């Protein structure tokens, strides 16, 4: 089992490293990630959402629906814990 997991881990790592070969260097400002969608958040967040913190404006506004999902995740987890751990009332 241990050897099997080791093999799987090494294989996964190999795939990951293979993918890394084509990745941009760390902190490179010219990556597509920084150029395609996110510039609009930085440049227009203030006028569109009136929030200083761009992360907040994205979280609460541009991608607010994800945050609703996030809240739901927490709610689900809470309900899940109650459902799992709640004991039957003694009769």
């Amino acid at each position: 089992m241990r050897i099997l997991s080791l093999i799987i881990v090494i294989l996964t790592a190999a795939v990951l490293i293979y993918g890394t070969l084509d990745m941009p260097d760390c902190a490179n400002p010219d990556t597509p990630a920084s150029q395609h969608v996110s510039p609009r958040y930085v440049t227009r967040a203030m006028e569109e959402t009136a929030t200083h913190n761009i992360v907040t404006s994205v979280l609460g506004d541009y991608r607010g629906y994800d945050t609703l999902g996030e809240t739901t995740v927490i709610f689900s987890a809470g309900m899940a814990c109650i459902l799992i751990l709640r004991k039957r009332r003694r009769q």
Partner: protein
Amino acid sequence: MFDFIVGKYNYWIYIILMMIGFYAMMSKRNLIKKIIGMNIFQTAIIIFFISIAAKRGATLPILEHAHDGGEHAIEAISYINPLPHVLMLTAIVVMVATLGVALAIVLLIYKKHGTLEEDEILKKIEFQE
């Protein structure tokens, strides 16, 4: 070669972390250790995402001079990419939620089987059948 390795150090770190977690998840016998592995695994992904956001010479995506109302044009290049941060806030929440549910289930397992070692649980299950 050296530049290559140093230039992409963030990826190496995340891969190593992730593989540690992955290995622990699969090969550890103790359920709590598995959960710890799972956390390391998820954290590695979060680190990966955050590291994508980095830009050399940029600062936090909080606009300080925005009151000026357009006197200073806001340059995207001077602020870190905010989107991965947002995504990871959500991912962290998911991670915490998963952790919570996992721990709840582990508690249930402990109540039911009296142990948290995987092989002992398996033995008990076999014994019951």
